[in-house]
């Protein structure tokens, strides 16, 4: 080991470290403090709108994983396909958002959440009414700019240091 700089390099390093002791740590105390995720977040679940869906299955064709399964019946009462089953295997889904992009009727949304773990794989397969929007399943603004405007702004690390724990 050559002390080219007489050990000054190490002392400089130590000065930087001790300076960090007095700065605020860049962590937040989850779950007491939750940061706002992006307004265009591609969350862990799919939300479907029964009124707008016509059963065209463009989303199923666009999905690279083949996670969407649609069964329709030709009950043309309101001049629409009657969608009997709309099943999504959320375990297969990679949250790429290509289905949201593909839907011509804006009937598919990605969720705004990230805490959707389940204990059994079978519970990840959701169909029909489980996929509707509800207060527990908010939608995000991915490819839906009108929804994105209403969601809260994202917390950026650039903007602020995380608040101190209360």
């Amino acid at each position, binding site marked *: *080991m*050559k*002390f*080219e*700089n*007489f*050990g000054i390099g*190490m002392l400089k*390093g*130590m000065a*930087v*470290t*001790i300076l*960090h*002791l007095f*700065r605020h*740590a*860049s*962590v937040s105390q989850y779950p007491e403090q939750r940061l706002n995720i992006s307004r265009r977040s591609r969350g862990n679940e799919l939300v479907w709108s029964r009124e707008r869906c016509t059963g065209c299955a463009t989303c199923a064709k666009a999905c690279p994983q083949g996670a969407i399964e649609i069964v329709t019946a030709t009950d043309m009462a309101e001049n629409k396909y009657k969608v009997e089953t709309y099943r999504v295997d959320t375990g297969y889904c990679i949250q790429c958002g290509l289905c949201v992009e593909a839907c011509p009727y804006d009937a598919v949304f990605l969720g705004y959440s990230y805490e959707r773990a389940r204990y059994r794989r079978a519970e990840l397969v959701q169909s029909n009414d489980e996929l509707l929007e509800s207060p527990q399943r908010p939608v995000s603004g991915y490819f839906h700019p009108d929804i994105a405007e209403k969601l809260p702004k994202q917390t950026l690390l650039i903007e602020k240091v995380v608040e101190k724990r209360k």
Partner: protein
Amino acid sequence: MSGGELIINTPLAMQVTPADWPGGYWWHWLFFTVAIIVFMLVMVIGAIYIERRAMGKMQSRIGPNRTGPFGLLQPVADAIKVLLKENIVPGTADKIVHFLAPIVAFTPVLMIFAVIPFQNGALLADLNIGILYVVAVSSIATVGVFMAGWGSGNKYSLLGAMRDIAAVVSYEIPLVLAIIGVVIVSGSLSMNEIVTSQDIPYILVQPLGFLLFFIAACAEINRSPFDLTEADSELTAGFHTEYSGMKFAMFYLVEYAEAMAMSAVITTLFLSGWRGPWLPPWLWFIIKTVIVFFVMVWTRTTLPRVRIDQLMGLAWKFVLPLALINLFITAIEVIFWPDVSQWFFVIVNIALAAILVILFSKLFKPGWGRVEV
């Protein structure tokens, strides 16, 4: 007192129990034994806590803060977790050696505290040869490490343990030479005498000695940046891999206890022990020990690890010559100018230390790492 004469060691001069201690010899012994054990365990728990919190803060995160208020019970949680683990002994292990190794590694560290003064005259045994006792006993812990490496029956543990021993043996000599500098200035080997003769803390009178002792101490106790044997266990497993449960807890304890013991020794030798205004002396001692330990944590956080051949090169080519020169200079100062005020020597020594470090940095040849075949 400017050191000029060494105290002659005669049996009549050995005073183990102070004359005014109530209850006599056995009560003194019992009180201090219990006090030392409790002190050491509490300090180790404090050390683990300080290390994790301070290191976390310096890395711009916070350390553990969920177990107990401010995370104070985290070391307790660690201890309970480790106690609940199964105690596995490998089949090819040497059973007796494997069992005894943690004990042999741990006991000497506890024994070091017997001669460290918490207050004026308040130590378990005021030996006239205090510092010599410390050096001798701290080397026994290495035997424990070697027993662990051999007793595991794992060739990688053995390699790791041998590396560790090579490092410790190399750094013993500069350690002792730095201590002798202090002994010459203070004129006595007894720890209590060393503290009482420090009107100026010896960190100022022996700056080079302090630096060398700190480096050698960090290397002895395998602390970063010299923690090859425990974190270079990427490849060759360290000597304590085959240990689980309480035995592993002993090794873990040994690491922090050694750090605390070395901090305590540095405090008594260089930072004038328990001396200080206003607060009770034992509180000053604890504060100074914690500060020295914090400096060790600070270096651990900042510096990357050195390689084994760089470690040995540093020992033999940098630290040892400087320690010899330091001893030489101190001896000359003490012999030829015994009556000059110590402040003069402070200035001279600091200047010489700076010059020597710069000179040696220029002359020290790097030990590249390539094997010369």
